[in-house]
């Protein structure tokens, strides 16, 4: 029985079988014999999540645009299908040619979220690939690689990967595959390849770096072998307006999380919110021109048949030509009966004209990320949003017919006091009062203010990378305080599980000693940790205990400015000096202007060799 028959024999026993058989419109099936290098692009979560990821769409199309390269997709099977795979010896396979992932030259994972780490191990195991890099064959095959935001501190994964790809992949992925092709022909082995790969800018080969630790548990020093660079600098695309963008997406049969065309309008962020990792690791700020955005939108809508398009960015309204861009897009989408959705709009530059344009498109809920309950705390985190701005935007929205508003906050932020928590409830109440004070508010509808509260997770490459996270007990106390402070039934409060946030902090800030913990947790049955129905915090705590690792050391300890951090040898173009400066400024509750107003000297323009705004 071949693999396809084996799969099909059991496919009707699982939920949403079309996720496991490929054949979607837009998928690219290449002849194995006529290509030189194969790349299995693995997403460590289910199809429904992974198929929504825009970075994977870009790199999939890009690699396949090269005649002699082949890229196929692979997602984590859901638990029902995993069971069947294990019982029937079905190895992890790619969706295009239903080929075992272990037969690919590259097995590339995108690391989007810390809580997907155990899924990587599970997928390698299902593929029949040794989980630890040191156990893999010396032959030049099965190069297990990872990219994505989490690899800005890949140390908790260091033992499992042959190499990490730092920064944007559009150029470096192809360089890596070219190198592989060349060296394979020369008959090189794995180690020889990795030595050469480490010389490519943006490639980090963890086995060439060793760490020693002080008695207090912090890093003593890092040593480098095999001539690898002491600092590994991330890659960026300089000419963003001309960067490769797919002309087609794989269109799934089953409904996925983001089931629409997404067009990336800008990369990076000018804001510098001090908790936000994305705001720093994707710098410098670069935009696509309205023409490019329009052309890519039109092309993708025509080729996929989607009737919905969404603009992707960290902050779409920061596009310098947003009016021109939206006018152009709305003309097209309205004529073609396409829905345009605009996530990531900021409160402060939300004008009446902009709202008018969005209203033409569709009327859904309005979401604002206020993040902090008081002005003092918003200044600490550099969320340059004032209460007047929030109020005036809500006023425009209410007068424009909106009756529900969703507000995002964070809890456990540095310097936070009970006053800040009570401030969240008070702010929500003032927005509600504002609604009732408006004469021409929507009639006959009950307003709703939704307050969604996440737990602050300190992340590498942010000014708050030095900060401790609140303990679980403290977070739970604050959550209760918030609930008690809300006086109206029209204000709904929801918050994240603090256990998840603590594990996220440990894995985000962890060093190599966590590899054993991740491995042990996976062995004890942890996977799909980001799914509340699968998350087993108790098992994780057991794994920490077994490995003799204290999670609080990573999550709840303040790091000194001169401490060697596990990610200090990785260069994301924003300097540590800048983060220290910003951290000090945060503690004085002083804001830093956004990049357009004034350069704050983060270092990215020097490292990238270009001005941010020219």
């Amino acid at each position, binding site marked *: 029985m071949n693999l396809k028959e084996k799969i099909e024999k059991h*496919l*009707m026993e699982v939920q*949403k*079988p*079309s996720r496991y*058989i*490929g*054949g*979607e*419109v837009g998928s690219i099936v290449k002849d194995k014999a006529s290509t030189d290098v194969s790349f299995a692009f693995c997403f460590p979560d289910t199809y429904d999540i992974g198929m929504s990821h825009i970075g994977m769409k870009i790199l999939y199309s890009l690699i396949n645009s090269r005649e002699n390269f082949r890229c196929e997709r692979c997602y984590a099977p859901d638990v029902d299908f995993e069971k069947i795979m294990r019982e029937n010896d079905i190895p992890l396979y790619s969706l295009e040619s239903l080929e075992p992932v272990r037969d690919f030259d590259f097995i590339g994972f995108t690391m989007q979220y810390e809580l997907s780490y155990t899924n990587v191990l599970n997928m390698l195991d299902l593929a029949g690939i040794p989980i630890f890099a040191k156990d893999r064959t010396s032959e030049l095959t099965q190069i297990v690689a990872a990219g994505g935001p989490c690899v800005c501190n890949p140390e908790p994964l260091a033992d499992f990967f042959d190499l990490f790809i730092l920064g944007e992949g559009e150029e470096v992925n192809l360089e890596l595959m070219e190198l592989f092709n060349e060296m394979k022909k020369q008959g090189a082995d794995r180690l020889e390849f990795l030595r050469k790969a480490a010389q490519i800018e943006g490639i980090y080969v963890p086995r060439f770096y060793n760490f020693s630790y002080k008695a207090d548990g912090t890093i003593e020093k890092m040593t480098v072998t095999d001539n690898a660079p002491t600092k590994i600098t991330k890659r960026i695309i300089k000419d963003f307006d001309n960067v490769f963008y797919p002309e087609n997406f794989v*269109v799934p*049969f*089953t*409904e996925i999380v983001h089931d629409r065309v997404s067009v990336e309008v800008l990369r990076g962020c000018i804001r510098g919110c001090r908790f936000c990792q994305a705001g720093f690791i994707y710098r410098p700020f670069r935009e696509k021109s309205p023409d490019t955005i329009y052309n890519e939108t039109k092309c993708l*809508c*025509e*080729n*996929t*048949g*989607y*009737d919905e398009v969404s603009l992707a960015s960290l902050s779409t309204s920061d596009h310098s030509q947003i009016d021109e861009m939206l006018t152009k897009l709305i003309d097209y989408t309205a004529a073609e*009966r396409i829905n345009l959705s605009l996530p990531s709009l900021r409160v402060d530059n939300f004008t009446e004209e902009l709202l008018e344009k969005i209203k033409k498109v569709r009327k859904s809920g309005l979401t604002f990320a206020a993040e902090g309950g008081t002005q003092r705390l918003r200044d600490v985190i550099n969320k340059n949003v004032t209460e007047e701005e929030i109020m005036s935007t809500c006023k425009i929205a209410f007068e424009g017919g909106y009756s529900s508003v969703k507000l995002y906050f964070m809890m456990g932020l540095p310097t936070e006091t009970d006053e800040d928590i009570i401030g969240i409830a008070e702010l929500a109440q003032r927005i509600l009062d504002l609604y009732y004070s408006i004469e021409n508010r929507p009639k006959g509808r009950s307003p709703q203010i939704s307050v969604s509260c996440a737990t602050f997770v300190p992340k590498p490459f942010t000014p708050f990378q030095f900060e401790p996270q609140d303990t679980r007990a403290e977070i739970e106390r604050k959550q209760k305080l918030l609930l008690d402070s809300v006086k109206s039934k029209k204000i709904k409060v929801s918050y994240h599980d603090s256990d998840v946030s603590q594990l996220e902090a440990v894995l985000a800030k962890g060093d190599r000693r966590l590899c054993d913990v991740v491995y042990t947790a996976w062995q004890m049955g942890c996977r799909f940790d980001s799914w509340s129905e699968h998350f087993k915090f108790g098992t994780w705590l057991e794994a920490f205990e077994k490995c003799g690792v204290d999670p609080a050391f990573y999550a709840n300890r303040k790091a000194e400015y001169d401490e060697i951090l596990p990610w200090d040898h990785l260069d994301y173009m924003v300097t540590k000096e800048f983060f220290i400066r910003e951290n000090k400024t945060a503690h004085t509750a002083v804001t830093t202007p956004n990049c357009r107003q004034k350069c704050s000297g983060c270092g990215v323009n020097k490292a990238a060799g270009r001005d941010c705004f020219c």
Partner: protein
Amino acid sequence: MLRLRATFEKSGRAKYISHLDLNRCMLRIFRRSKLPVWYTEGFNPHPYYSFALALSLGFESSCEIMDFNITDDNMSLDVIKDRLNEVMPEGMGIVAIAPQIKKITAIAKAEYEFELKSDDVQGMYKAVEELLSAPEILIEKKTKKGIKTVDLKPDTEIVKLEIAEGAVRIAMRLPAGTKTNYNPTLFTEALKKSCEIPFEMVNIRRTGILCENNEKFS
């Protein structure tokens, strides 16, 4: 306006597209084809199309039927067929396009072919014959109003019963349409109860959508 009826194939990997997903899939097929398909005129205009019968997940078919309208009266049916076929996913394809003749309510039956795979094919064949010659074939069927016991016997027409390639191959007609719908898995469920031999039902395919007099619905 052209009121059209397409007969289409759904096989291979496309058999895993559920009926709900097929709806979304067809919407995108129409959009990709850029055909002047007629949109509904309600609050939320969308291309109008309607499937005659739902097909169970995992079943193949060479005779699925979909009605839709084209606003350009001068468009040739061949052009419409080609433009749709160009943008269909693997395993799906338009077999024919013709004007709508009968009303959907004229559908009375559907014909299915399937195989029963077993280590004891001869024994399986006998078990099928026995079940078919029983005075009644009772099986519990889930309906909207709850579980009810139905007798398949009077409504089951056997078109073919043979041994081929190590399996028992059956073709049968069952009631379909707006009144009664019997799925061939009802028959194999009854078989599982009446016979001891383990078997697997494979390669299920709908081969015809018929009117009361066994004439092809068109």
